[in-house]
């Protein structure tokens, strides 16, 4: 009774499906973003908000205390924070998706199921590129400077890559919790402290030792430090390697985890 003509997909088929379907879902998510431009602006507005707030409210004090040019210090940090806001939107967006009926059709289609998440992480990263460039433009108006064009490209690429890895973390949380409000609220408890206890806005040298041990090594800090080295054209030391290690490590953990959590009915 078996029908020899309709195929059981081979590994090659599945790989091809994964790429094609990710492109399709990315296309879909980008249409949705274009129809809800506030989703794009939110991450950018948050970035600009931090940029202005920290520069004009805390800039004087922090700058005086550390003797660094604060705007030059702050902009790379805000890059990373902006990309993180984008990852946070992956989380709420996917949770919303999972509550929508269309997910049930996706599950019944001959498609790569990981593409539903992958498409969203790609769309969110494309949005992050726009967001980070906008922040950079405002930063330039405020006196921030890239040391070189390649440094600028590298900085934006590294920022977006870190945001991409965080998107998969956000996707895992969404696939587990499946409630957009809950996911949004939860991020206040992990994302916010991680953002502040990092070198994104302030040098960690003023933090107490126990906090500093965490702050120096967590992914937001290593990303901010590595991006800073790229924008300033200074030697990055181990920061770039640590940042890449974090990106790879997070992808290794969260790509399979989010896919598994998503596959539950």
């Amino acid at each position: 009774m078996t029908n020899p003509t309709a195929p059981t997909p081979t590994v090659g088929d599945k790989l091809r499906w994964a790429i094609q379907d990710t492109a399709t879902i990315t296309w879909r998510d980008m249409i949705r973003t274009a129809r809800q431009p506030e989703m794009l602006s939110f991450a950018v507005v948050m970035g600009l908000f931090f940029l202005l707030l920290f520069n004009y409210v805390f800039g004087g004090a922090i700058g005086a205390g550390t003797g660094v040019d604060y705007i030059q210090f702050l902009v790379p940090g805000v890059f990373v924070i902006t990309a993180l806001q984008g990852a946070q939107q992956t989380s709420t967006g996917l949770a919303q998706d999972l509550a929508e009926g269309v997910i049930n059709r996706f599950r019944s289609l001959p498609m790569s199921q990981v593409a539903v998440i992958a498409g969203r992480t790609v769309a969110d990263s494309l949005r992050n590129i726009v967001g980070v460039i906008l922040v950079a433009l405002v930063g330039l108006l405020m006196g921030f400077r890239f040391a070189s064009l390649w440094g600028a490209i590298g900085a934006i690429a590294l920022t977006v890559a870190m945001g991409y890895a965080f998107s998969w973390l956000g996707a895992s949380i969404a696939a587990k919790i499946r409630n957009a409000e809950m996911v949004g609220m939860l991020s206040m408890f992990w994302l916010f402290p991680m953002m502040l206890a990092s070198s994104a806005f302030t040098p960690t040298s003023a933090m107490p030792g126990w906090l500093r041990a965490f702050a120096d090594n967590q992914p937001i800090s290593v990303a901010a430090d590595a991006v800073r080295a790229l924008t300033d054209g200074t030697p990055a030391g181990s920061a770039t390697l640590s940042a890449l290690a974090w990106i790879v490590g997070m992808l290794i953990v969260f790509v399979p985890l989010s896919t598994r959590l998503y596959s539950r009915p």
Partner: protein
Amino acid sequence: MASTSDAPVIVAEGLWKSYGDIPAVRDLSFEVRPGSVFGLLGPNGAGKTTTINMLTTLLPIDAGRASVAGFDVERAPEAVRQVIGLAGQAAAIDEKLTARENLEMFGRLYKMPKPERRARVDELIEQFRMTEYADRTVSTYSGGQRRRIDVVAALIANPPALFLDEPTTGLDPRSRVELWEEIRSLADGGTAVVLTTQYLEEADRLADHIVIIDRGTVVASGTAGALKDDLDRDVLEVHFASVGDLNLAVGKMAGVTDDYGTDETSSKLTIPISEGSASSLALLRRFEDAGIPIVDFHYRRPTLDDVFMSHTDEVITGSGRSK
């Protein structure tokens, strides 16, 4: 897809499914051949959607086995998904996209080549008269327009096995008839269709074979005609002027039979008449003698509704059966 043989496309063998301790589907078996429409009927909660979800790889099967086009639903879900189209009971389209974009997206996910996909999208939009709103986002659609794009989305890839869970719910009479014609012509083209519905007229017109399930298990099965013949009784319907008259008439039924139903909204009394029971004439005379005016009455062959009611737990006319 009108495949070489007449072997069944959809096979369910002894399917079981429980949610926790509560069985939703119990030992359900059936087959659907190419070119035929299989009607799955049953009251709310009977297990229709659960059955469809198992057959379309959405829900794990507890026991039994199922296959579509020869592919085992549990062991080869990815193969099964290539040969099915599903219009589930709950809407499953992207609200933020237009109808055209939705169809385009599903066509891509089915891996239809671009020219074929474009042509098919245009064809479906035209055929189902969606041109007027096909380029608006679905969130602006009326309930029926939404239902229509949802069902149409299942047709995009011309799958050999089609699962439609209450496809015409919410459609206006004209759209319903159009969809019936489309389903019929798909079946005539060789598609195997599983259809659930609450509109028995729909099953009567469309389904080549009907299974009535109640509490997850089969209570009757056959063609619409055979099921009606099996019922072996005709039905007398008597309409009264008011609910008050209806209740008086019900009072007069005491001692005659307690196998009847009432419909208070239309003040209607429905009494099955079989050999050996009181004759219609005697019943009508009884009401007349009691001075209860009869507005209208019909003596008719059983409909699929009567078959349904007699096999499922609900009494002839729902809330009916006084006392």
